[in-house]
């Protein structure tokens, strides 16, 4: 099982109305640049518990899912139990 972790995100709104995350800050304070986004679709995270637009991102050559919930919040799935406030 994974856990739901809300993270700080720096994102960009393009003039044609597309929202793209650029970087996020993990709970340990480490900032990660997003190299590329390979997929954007609405999806549910059954593991972390939630649903929203799912951005499949490449970070340091690894793939991670970043979810955007409608209420201006972004969450990720974590293997460790470091749940943030809901």
């Amino acid at each position, binding site marked *: *099982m994974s856990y739901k972790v809300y993270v700080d995100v720096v994102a960009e709104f393009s003039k044609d109305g597309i929202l793209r995350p650029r970087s996020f800050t993990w709970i340990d304070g480490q900032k990660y640049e997003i190299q590329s986004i390979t997929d954007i679709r609405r*999806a*549910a995270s*059954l593991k*972390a*518990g939630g*649903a929203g637009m799912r951005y499949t991102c490449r970070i340091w050559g690894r793939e991670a899912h970043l979810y955007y919930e409608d209420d201006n919040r972004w969450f990720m799935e974590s293997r460790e139990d470091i749940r943030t406030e809901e």
Partner: protein
Amino acid sequence: MERVILHSDMNCYYAGVEHLYHPELKGKPIAVGGDPQKRHGIVLTADYMAKKYGVKTGMTLKEAYALCPCITFISPHMDRYLRFSRMAREIYGEYTDRQEPFGIDECWLDVTESASVKGDGYKIAREISRRIKEELGLTVSIGVSYNKIFAKLGSDYKKPDAITSFYRWERESKAWPLAASKLLYVGRRTAVKLHKIGINTIGDIANAREDILTDHLGKMGSVLKAFALGYDDSPVKKEGASAPVKSIGNGITTVRDLENIEDVKVVLYALSESVAKRLRENGFSCKTVEIHFRDNGLMSFTRQRPLKHPSDITAEIAEAGVGIVRDNYDFRKPLRSIGIRGCDLIEGSYWDQGDIFQDPKEREKRMQMDRAVDNIRERFGYYSIQRGLMLNDRGLSSINAREDHTVHPVAFDFSR
């Protein structure tokens, strides 16, 4: 062409959403409702596991706890449920613009016209079900049928996460053996009444004599018989038709004051066109026509009159309106504004008792004419076809038409 109607029902909706947000409670019974800390309030939705223990909607948390001590109560998050409901409708919207919500978690979809592109109803149902699971993390039950009533029967037939068809040829074999209480509008009390006259299944209702049904159930008897036979051709309303509509009206403050019945006629016909069109679009007929008067001293009042027959026909509504004005206003003071409204709405598709003074052929003609005019206007614009009457006073007739052909003007507010 046979219609293809789906009814999609999100299973244990509130509980389903909460399960998604609480993966740690997977496999454990939960109920949404009340205030768990204070341990009071009632159960709004129980999940399947809690239902197995006998927990039902409407129970107090205490009663639920007594039945199922391992239950977890979760306070409702209405914003979440609305959000997921909206996301589901976005998915439905990719298959049809004819979706009619029935509460927050159920929806009828008319996918007749997308069937040629997206595949048959069953295939579309499978795709919707898969997408709701992947994109929202919820399960749905979907009924596939040729009318709304049987589609609803299908989504209730098997839960959770199932697709059930009730095609025309499955009526006798699949629908009729079901308990009468499964039919829409057969509640507990109706079921008891039916049971007393030996009617226990949907097939029994279908085969019962209509006069016996109406003797015991009133008008509803005929409606239920029609439902059981699958004679439901009520349309799936267009997206956004929303909430129960009580009346449809339109009013206007005219460019100049209305001095006589001829002026009123022009304006009322123009207004009635939009009122009747909206009635038709939403599948309603009105049984009463109401006129709102306001004179140039800003004194206002309302008069209404029942129609002999429920109607969505422009000419009938306008004629009734003109009649009301003729009988209730003497034009000692000119009218500053006037409104017309159809109220006592009924679903337009149900039949109506004819009478010997009525000319059904003439009515049918008028209905066809309205449909033809709607069609022409949809294709070529509002001004492409007009009543001759409108030429009597272009000033009076044009102003409404102009507003009208962009977006229907917001209904004139009669409430005082």
